[in-house]
C-alpha cells in the first residue's frame, strides 16, 4: 500500500489496517511519538482503532531537544 508519511511517499508490501499495525511494522510501537492522520491528531489510545487506507496522509512527530 502507498502512504504519505512526513512528506514522503512510502510503499509498503503488506496491507495495514490500523495505525497500530503500521507503527508495529515500522518498529515504532514503543516510541514516545505523536501521529496526525489525515489532519486529525490522534491520542495514543486511538492507535489501535484508527483504520488506515491507501493514500492516507501521516505526520509522525516526537519531542526533540529544544529551549
Amino acid at each position, binding site marked *: 500500500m502507498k502512504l504519505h*508519511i*512526513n*512528506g514522503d511517499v*512510502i510503499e509498503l508490501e503488506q496491507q495495514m489496517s490500523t495505525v497500530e499495525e503500521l507503527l508495529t511494522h*515500522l*518498529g*515504532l510501537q514503543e*516510541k*514516545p*511519538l*505523536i501521529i*496526525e492522520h489525515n489532519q486529525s*491528531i*490522534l*491520542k*495514543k489510545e486511538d492507535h489501535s482503532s484508527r483504520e488506515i487506507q491507501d493514500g492516507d496522509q501521516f*505526520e*509522525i*512527530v*516526537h*519531542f*526533540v*531537544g*529544544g*529551549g
Partner: protein
Amino acid sequence: MMLTINDQQFQSRLFLGTGKYPNFDVQKEAVDVSETEVLTFSVRRMDIFDPEQPNFLEKIDMDRYQFLPNTAGAKTAEEAVRTAKLADASGLCDMIKVEVIGCDKTLLPDPVETLKATEMLLDEGFTVLPYTSDDVVLAKKLEDLGAHAIMPGASPIGSGQGIINPLNLQFIIEQANVPVIVDAGIGSPKDAAHAMELGADGVLLNTAVSGSDDPVKMAQAMKQAIEAGRLGYEAGRIAKKDYAVASSPKEGISVGK
C-alpha cells in the same frame, strides 16, 4: 516561597532547555545537577526509518519533570496552535511555550502572531506561557488575555548577551500579576542572577548550559546563581549612593589626632 504557575507549584526557579548537549549522558547529569523541575522540548518529524534512534525522554524519569514543549518552527499563530495540539496529544505535557518567530536572523518573536496564538490556545484550555520580547505593553496585553506566565527575552535566543534592557524587564516584572520567567539570551550565571535580582520569578535557559565547556558544572552554577539572585531580591538590596559611606564607626579611632 514556591513558584506557582496556574495550579502547579515549583521549588526550582530554573527552567532548562534540552537542546544541543554534547551527548545524553552529559545532558542527564546536567539536568540532575540543575535540580530543575521543568524541561522544554521541541516537536519535530521523526525519522521513521530509524526506530533505534535514542530519545532523551527515554533516558530520564519522566515523572520527575513537568514538560514545557515549545512551538518553535511556527511562523503563524495557526502553526503554533497545531504544534501545541500535537504536543498535547502525547499526554505528557502540562504547559505550552508559545514561540512564534518573526525574523530568521534575530529569532525575535512576532508580537502579533504571539498574541493571537496565546489567545487561541487559552481558548482551548492550555496553560500558556508565551515567549515574548521585552516590550512592556505587549507583556501587559499577554497577561490581559490570560497568559499564565510571561516569558520576556533577555536578548536574542542563543546569543548569550545577557540582559540588554534591564529597565524594560523591571517594568514588565513590576506590572505583572502572573509569574515572569526571563527566557532566552542568558549567557552566564551573572545574567541569571541579574534577572532574579530584578525580581523575575524564574529563568529559562538552554545554550548557556548546553554550549558551555562543562555543562554539568554550568548547570550547578546556574542553579546557585538563580537561588542567590532570588535571595538577594527577597532580602532587598541597599540603595546606590554617589559617595562612600564608611562601614566602620568614625568614633574611637586610635591613630592620628
